[in-house]
C-alpha cells in the first residue's frame, strides 16, 4: 500500500462525471507522473484529491486513512499540498506573506520552515518583502512550490509547473523537485512536458477522456509507441 491510494474514483462538476473509475497509487518518496492531453481530466483529478471538488464515488486514502469526505484543510493537515495550475500565487501579497499563507493552518509558518524554503530558493529570500505580482513567471513558480512546502507536506501535487516557462527554468524546477524528493516528500506531477517528466519520475499514468488508459514504469511508458506518438512527438 502506498502513501496515496485512489480506488474507483469518480468525480465531476455536478453534470455527467468527468473522471471515471480512477485507480492510482503514489508510494513513499516516489515521483509519479500523470500524462494526459488537454481536457483529459488531470486538473479535475487534482482538485478532487485536495478536496475543493467533492468525489462522486470511490475512495481516496492518504497513509491508509480515508480522506475523500474530508474538507481541504483536514487533507492539508494530513500532508497533502498543491502547486496549482498557473501558479496562482497571491500577487498583491509579499513573498513572505505568500509563504505564510502556505502555513496558514499552522499559525503562519515556523521559523525553520521559512529558513528551509529560503535556502532552497535564495531568490525568494532576496525578495521576501516584494509583492509576488512583481516576480517573473519562473520566480512565481518557485514561490508556489515554496508555499506548498510550508505546510510540511508528505505529498505534493503539481499541476503543470513547466507551463509558460523557458526550457532553462523548466530544468531548474525539475532539479528542485528532485531535491525535494530526496528529503522524503512524494510527488504527483501532472505534465504536458512528457519527455522531461518521464525522465525524472519512477512511474507514470496516462489519463484519456477521464479514464486511466495506461500505467507502468516511466521508462516503459517512454518506449510505448502510443505514448511516443501522443506525447513525445513520434
Amino acid at each position, binding site marked *: 500500500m502506498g502513501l496515496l491510494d485512489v480506488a474507483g474514483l469518480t468525480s465531476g462538476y455536478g453534470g455527467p462525471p468527468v473522471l471515471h473509475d480512477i485507480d492510482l497509487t503514489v508510494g513513499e518518496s516516489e515521483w509519479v507522473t500523470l500524462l494526459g492531453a488537454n481536457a483529459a481530466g488531470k486538473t479535475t483529478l487534482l482538485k478532487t484529491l485536495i478536496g475543493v471538488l467533492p468525489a462522486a464515488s470511490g475512495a481516496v486514502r492518504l497513509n491508509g486513512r480515508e480522506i475523500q469526505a474530508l474538507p*481541504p484543510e483536514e487533507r492539508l493537515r494530513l500532508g497533502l499540498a498543491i502547486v496549482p495550475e498557473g501558479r496562482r500565487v*497571491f500577487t*498583491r501579497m509579499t513573498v513572505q506573506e505568500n509563504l505564510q499563507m502556505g502555513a496558514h493552518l499552522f499559525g503562519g509558518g515556523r521559523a525553520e520552515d521559512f529558513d528551509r524554503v529560503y535556502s532552497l530558493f535564495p531568490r525568494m529570500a532576496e525578495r521576501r518583502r516584494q509583492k509576488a505580482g*512583481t516576480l517573473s513567471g519562473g520566480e512565481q513558480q518557485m514561490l508556489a512550490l515554496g508555499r506548498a512546502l510550508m505546510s510540511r507536506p508528505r505529498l505534493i501535487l503539481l499541476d503543470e509547473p513547466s507551463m509558460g516557462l523557458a526550457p532553462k527554468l523548466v530544468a531548474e524546477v525539475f532539479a528542485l523537485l528532485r531535491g525535494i524528493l530526496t528529503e522524503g516528500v512524494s510527488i504527483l506531477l501532472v505534465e504536458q512536458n512528457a519527455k522531461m517528466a518521464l525522465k525524472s519520475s519512477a512511474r507514470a499514468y496516462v489519463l484519456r477522456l477521464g479514464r486511466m488508459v495506461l500505467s507502468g514504469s516511466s521508462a516503459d511508458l517512454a518506449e510505448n509507441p502510443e505514448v511516443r506518438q501522443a506525447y513525445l512527438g513520434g
Partner: protein
Amino acid sequence: MNGPRAATWLLWAGPAFVLAWVLGFLLTPEVRGLAEPQDFAGLAGLAALAAIAWCAWRALDRRGLLTVFDEARHRAPAQFGLSVLLCAAVFPLILAQLGKYYWIHVGALSLIYVILAVGLNLVVGFAGLLVIGFAAFYGIGAYAAAIVTTEVGDLPHMIWLLIPAAAVLSAAFGVLLGVPTLRLRGDYLAIVTLGFGEITRIVFTNWDTLTRGPRGISGVGSFQIGGWNLMHPLDVGPLRLDGDTQYYYLILAAALLGVFLAHRLNHSRIGRAWVAMREDELAARSFGIDVARCKILAFAIGAAYAGVAGVFFGSLQGFVDPTSFSFLESVLILSMVVLGGMGSLSGSVVAAVLLVILPEKLQMLRDYRMLIFGLLMILLMIVRPQGLIPSRRRMLELGSRPG
C-alpha cells in the same frame, strides 16, 4: 521632505494644517446662491472656497500634501495618530467658541459615518465582497435603539446595553444575508445585497405597528451616566459643552475603538485569510482557508459596525425614519470606501468626514448640490483612482507609488 527632522515637524503641523483647513472650509461665509453675483459677501465666499479648492487640488497631486502626510504617517504612526487625535479633540471646542454649533452636530454625524465606512471597508475592501445594501444594517441598529428605548421605556442606562445588542442583532442579519449568498460573486452579490437593503427599507416603512411607518419614531433615548444625560449641556470649568459636543466625544471614542479593532483584524490571521480569499478563492481554499466561514465572518463583523453606528445615529438625532436608510445612503457609504481607497482604513476615515461635510457645505448650490457633488466625485476618481489614501497593497496594483 528629505530629512527626518522635517518629517517630525510635519507630524504635528500636518494634522493641524488639515484642521485649520477644515475649519476654514466650514466657516467660509455661506454663499447665498450663484444667482446673485452682485452680493459682495457671496463673491468673497466664492473666492475663499476657490482658494480652499485649490489647496485640496494641490493635496491630491502626486507629490502633494496628501502623499507627504502619508509618508510622515508611515514613519511615525504613533505620533501622527496622536496629533490627529488632538486635532479631532479641539475641533468642537473651537467651533463652540465661534458659536457654530450646527457644525459640531455635522462633526458627530461624520464620525458615525467613519464607523460605517470602516465597517463596510472590512467587507468590501478586505474581504472583497461587494455589498451595496449596507444601510440596512445601519437601519436595523438605529431602529433597534429607537424601538427599545421608546416601547420598553427609557431606563437610564439601557442604551449602553443596546450597543452590544444592536451589534449582535445586525451581525445576525449579516449572517442571514451571508449564508444564502456564499456562492455569489461581484455584481451578482451586489444585486442581492441591494435587494436586501430595499427590503429592509420597505419593512421599516410598512411595519406600522412596530416602526410607525413613514412617520418615524421620535424620542429615541439618549446616553446617560448616572444622573448625567449627555444631551444636556455640561459645564466643565469655563467651557460649556452642549449635547452635540458630548455626543461628538462619545462617538469619537467609539470610532477610535472601531478603527483600532479593524486595524488589528487586518493584521491578524483572519485579515490575511480575507486578503487571500479576495485575491484567489480557489488557491485560498487549497491552503485550508474555510472560505465560507471567512465570508460570513466578514458579513457579521461589517454588519455589527453598522448596527453600532445606527444606535449612535438614532440617539444623536433623537428620531429615526425609513428615509435615513435609503439606497442613496448605501451608495454614500460605499463611495466613502471607494474614494478613501479600498482596504485603507485611514482613507475611509478621511473620505467619510469629507463626504459628510462636502454636501452640507454645498447647500448653497441648492438644487445643483448633488450635481456638483457627483462631478467632484468623478474628478477625484480620475485624479486618484487608487483612493485618497491608498492601502499599500492597492498602490502596487494601480502603479502609482508615492515618491
